[in-house]
């Protein structure tokens, strides 16, 4: 098991390195960047001379890369070209917001999908089951930004139960979290349902019933545990996709998280910010990958033993 962890971590680090180079070069290779920034009306801080110096554009690219990475790893990724604010400060505050949103969405996803999926499988072909499947289809078909519009229209404009945008009060997190989680809920519903259905057909369920265990315990402890590998495998993929969606959802609701900052930075050609954020998010994706792989190993003891031997 330990060897597996080490191998995977190394692999992740390599991926990260490759990604950082790709992002860096991607951003730098942009044509006419300085001129764009200069003509950006929001830029109040720099003039052409110290801009060039600031960006170190006169040095060869690999040197620029190393310099940048050096700054980054020592905790100082520089300042925004547009506002002059240090990026670290933006990172920490925005990071907090994104974390809150992601957590809320994840919680919502599993709190909804697991019980509903389980019950749908348990009461197969019942009204509940069919309702759940319809929900799943809807969740997958509606693009999340469209869902956002609909929800805003319904809850914020018509019913006035929830605020349209903003981030001060606790209610403001509800709509963004729902939009973010919608597709994840839909897909998880289907996976949970089909995985549980498969498990319910297995022999050990009958043995458990023969032991006289209560239904609830059989379902929620035994069946769910055995049905979890596909769900955990999915979690890895879902988290990554979720990360991508935060970019859109945060922008819609003006939720001041990392995604919102990144999109704005790109639109304003604010390179240091864009670069750092992109790198950070990429790191997050790779880490999620790693965690999901490890989680999958843990859930199935048989695989765990094999991985130990490997």
């Amino acid at each position, binding site marked *: 098991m330990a060897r597996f962890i080490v191998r995977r971590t190394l692999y992740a680090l390599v991926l990260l390195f490759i990604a950082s180079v790709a992002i860096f070069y991607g*951003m730098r290779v942009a044509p006419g960047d300085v001129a764009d920034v200069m003509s950006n009306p929001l830029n109040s801080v720099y003039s052409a001379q110290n801009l060039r110096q600031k960006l170190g554009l006169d040095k060869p690219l690999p040197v620029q890369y190393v310099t940048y990475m050096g700054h980054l790893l020592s905790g100082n990724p520089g300042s925004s070209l547009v506002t002059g604010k240090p990026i670290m400060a933006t990172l920490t505050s925005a990071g907090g917001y994104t974390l809150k949103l992601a957590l809320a969405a994840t919680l919502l996803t599993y709190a909804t999908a697991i019980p509903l999926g389980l019950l749908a499988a348990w009461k197969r072909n019942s009204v509940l089951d069919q309702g759940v499947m319809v929900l799943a289809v809807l969740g997958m078909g509606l693009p999340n930004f469209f869902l956002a519009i*609909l929800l805003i229209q319904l809850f914020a404009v018509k019913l006035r139960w929830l605020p349209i945008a903003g981030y001060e009060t606790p209610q403001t997190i509800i709509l963004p979290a729902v939009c973010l989680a919608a597709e994840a809920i839909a897909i998880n519903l289907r996976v949970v349902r089909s995985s549980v259905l498969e498990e319910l057909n297995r022999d050990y369920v009958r043995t458990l019933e023969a032991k006289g265990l209560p239904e609830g315990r059989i379902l929620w402890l035994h069946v769910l545990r055995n049905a979890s590998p596909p769900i955990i495998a999915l979690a890895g993929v879902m988290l990554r996709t979720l990360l*991508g969606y935060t970019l859109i959802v945060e*922008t819609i609701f003006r939720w001041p998280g990392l995604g919102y900052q990144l999109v704005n930075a790109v639109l304003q050609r604010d390179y240091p910010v864009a670069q750092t954020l992109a790198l950070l998010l990429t790191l997050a994706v790779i880490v999620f990958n790693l965690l999901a792989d490890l989680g999958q190993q843990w859930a199935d003891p048989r695989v765990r033993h094999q991985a130990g031997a490997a």
Partner: protein
Amino acid sequence: MMAQESVGLAVDEEFQPALPVRRGRTLGERLAPLRANKLALLGGVVSFLFVVVAGVGFVILAVPSLQHLYLDQNVEVTLTPPFHGGHILGTDNLGRDMAWRIVAGTGISLFAGLVVTTLSMTVGMALGAVAGYAGGVTDRLISGLIDLTWGFPVILVAVIFVGALQPGLTAVIAAISVVNWAGFARIVRAQVVSLKERAFVEAARALGIPAWKIVLRHLIPNMVGTSLVMASYYVAVTVIAEAGLAFIGLGAQPPTPSLGQMISSGRNYLYIDPWVAIIPGITIALIVLGLNTLGDGLRDIFDPHLRQW
């Protein structure tokens, strides 16, 4: 015993494919399994309708004299709801006819979907087949690349791309292609790996048929079904991605209409005329649902093993 059989098969190998790649069936015969599966049929019909609409859209986008249909502004009839004053789907905030804009937008969406899927499919299948067939270091290299790219959030990549290039349809298409190819490659590779072990491949190899020929003439035709299934899913994914990117301003720039961008601008008028935002949204949803259903149906026909959920 097995060798005996292989040799018997192998004699004709050079002259016709080992597996019956179906030729010479009428269109009706080919569509028969599609007809039998109602789900696929429904999805196919809806998708086909949208393809037609997209075709029209593409025409009016390309032909200069027709562009006015979605460009004409009329300040007097802004924000009318559907079925008013000769505009079936109403008008937007600049008085442009919604119906034509939807048609044009659909054209853009499906155009993106088509280009991206063709690109990703070609690259993905090629790389996947090579990786699966060659094995060894080549396989590990390509697989590593696939792993890195596969689950990557498209939006993130697209945003990064737009950071490098100008916002616009080209950037969007490039970005989505960069991520999507890996999905194809993964599945193709898995299939090739399993097909590689089959007897007819051994026979072909024993005859000295070069590897590329084996891959091209024997392995690829067996993957047509799977590819179709994936293609329909990926076009749907692309449509959503393109719309999402357009929504936050990183996609096709005005005056080129994009369904996502329409939703975004319509958002400001939700109080007054919600239709301006809702109609493009419903359009996207229908396109996606149609394609997903088609994909589900095709999968049930061709390869139930693809059923992940």
